């Protein structure tokens, strides 16, 4: 597999690796994929009262492009309003990383992770209020 320098950079030096407290009401967690499929992404966002993502982190079990896609997404999410984040498409991620055709699935999974994290945060908020 030939990867772009950008994938390799994110794979070698992944940004924002870590975990937030899942039970924190300001945190949304998205856990997508399956071990048997070869990729699992856990993406977390921390959202302020104005529904703006102030922080994001991830952990990923998967190939280099899955790691790079999650790492890139954490960078993209910071500072974005939830409504804006909701609009991020897999094609943007794939383009940004110049993913090979066989690895487009990784960008789809990263998009799923964003949606799942936002949904989780909204559920959280709903439960609490």
């Amino acid at each position, binding site marked *: 597999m030939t990867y772009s320098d950008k994938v390799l950079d994110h794979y070698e030096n992944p940004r924002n690796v870590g975990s937030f407290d899942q039970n924190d009401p300001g945190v949304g967690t998205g856990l997508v994929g399956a071990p048997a499929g070869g990729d699992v992404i856990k993406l977390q966002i921390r959202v302020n009262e104005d529904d703006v993502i102030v922080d994001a982190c991830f952990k990923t*079990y998967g*190939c280099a492009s899955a790691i790079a896609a999650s790492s890139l997404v954490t960078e993209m999410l910071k500072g974005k309003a939830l409504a804006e984040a909701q609009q991020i498409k897999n094609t943007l991620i794939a383009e940004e990383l110049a993913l090979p055709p066989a690895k487009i699935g990784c960008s789809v999974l990263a998009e799923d992770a964003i949606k799942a994290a936002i949904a989780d945060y909204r559920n959280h908020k709903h439960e609490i209020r």
Partner: protein
Amino acid sequence: MGYPVMNMTATEMNQTFRKRPIYLDYAATTPVDPRVARKMMAYLTPDTEFGNPSSRSHLYGWHAEEAVEAARQQVAALINADPKEIVWTSGATESDNLAIKGAAHFYHNKGKHLITCKTEHMAVLDSCRQLEQEGFEVTYLTPEPSGLIDLNKLAAALREDTLLVSIMHVNNEIGVIQDIEAIGELTRARGIIFHVDAAQSAGKVPIDLGRMKVDLMSLSAHKIYGPKGIGALYVRRQPRVRIEAQIHGGGHERGMRSGTLPVHQIVGMGEAFRIAKEEMREENEHIRQLRDRLLAGLQDIEEIYLNGDLEQRVPHNLNISFNYVEGESLIMALKDIAVSSGSACTSASLEPSYVLRAIGRSEELAHSSIRFSLGRYTTEQDIDYTIDLIHKKIRKLRELSPLWEMHQQGVDPAKVEWAAH
């Protein structure tokens, strides 16, 4: 000579090539021993013995034939066979094809059933598949979780019309040694032909065909420091086993395999087998020490699984699965060492190792396996570097892994209900 590398010692070679990844993939192929390469050089250029051994009318041919026969002797000597029982081929893949298809075609009136094992090399499995297309029936035995075959299960699979049993001596992925001596007793008693793929065992495990009741044995040169593109098939003369040629054109090798003999390759294989016979015992001891050092150095890593039996195994092989890290990212993380992976992610197929699946490993563990195979030029430094690298990279990938985090929190990811992907 104009080839300085041929005169280097192993240490000098390590220094010269240290910028390259550390080579721990000897089961894939070995470098040609400089002593072998030197011999081969004497059978190529105009001032050397470049003749065609089939040329009966002049000195060039006679000298080439002498060299081929000397090499035949050397190959036969390693396995305690008669030189007349050695047929040159292009490698173990061709030998497997010739043995299995050749015997099945020759004896097709005697029966139509074959037995092999799910963990055999693709050269054996694909030859069997081809015979199935032609109307033969094949039983594919499942090995025990250790990778070894339960002889009772093999005996139970034998039928009245069983023609041939093909079982490899040493497995290429997990290095386990099958009890071919015992299998030979079973097959000989019933008059069934026994083929053994010994590509991974010759030069690593003692083979005595005076004692072992093997009828056909595939051999390769490039797994034991000989050149690529040359191999042999042992065909027993007493009791005589017949095979139908798969390649026609001139009737070389007593009609079993036509084609001009590649003298330099054959000489190389002969020399490699001679060296193996002389040095095998000492070399195995050295490699076992290095393997034990590697295993000891990795054993404190949590959640690792050794694939295949540790005792019934060649010391050259260590195959380990690292739980909670993904195969492709693992291979990328280990780019400073040249190893093989049970993950085919980097190739067109997404299928993990069929050998590891056959011994009962989960798909995830099959994907995250690494085969370390050690050889003649492996040093203690190589091993220590590898141990350090593996520790660092596994730590890094696990810090990245949500599955590892679950495991640390006492959640078993295998029991989580994952969305279908």
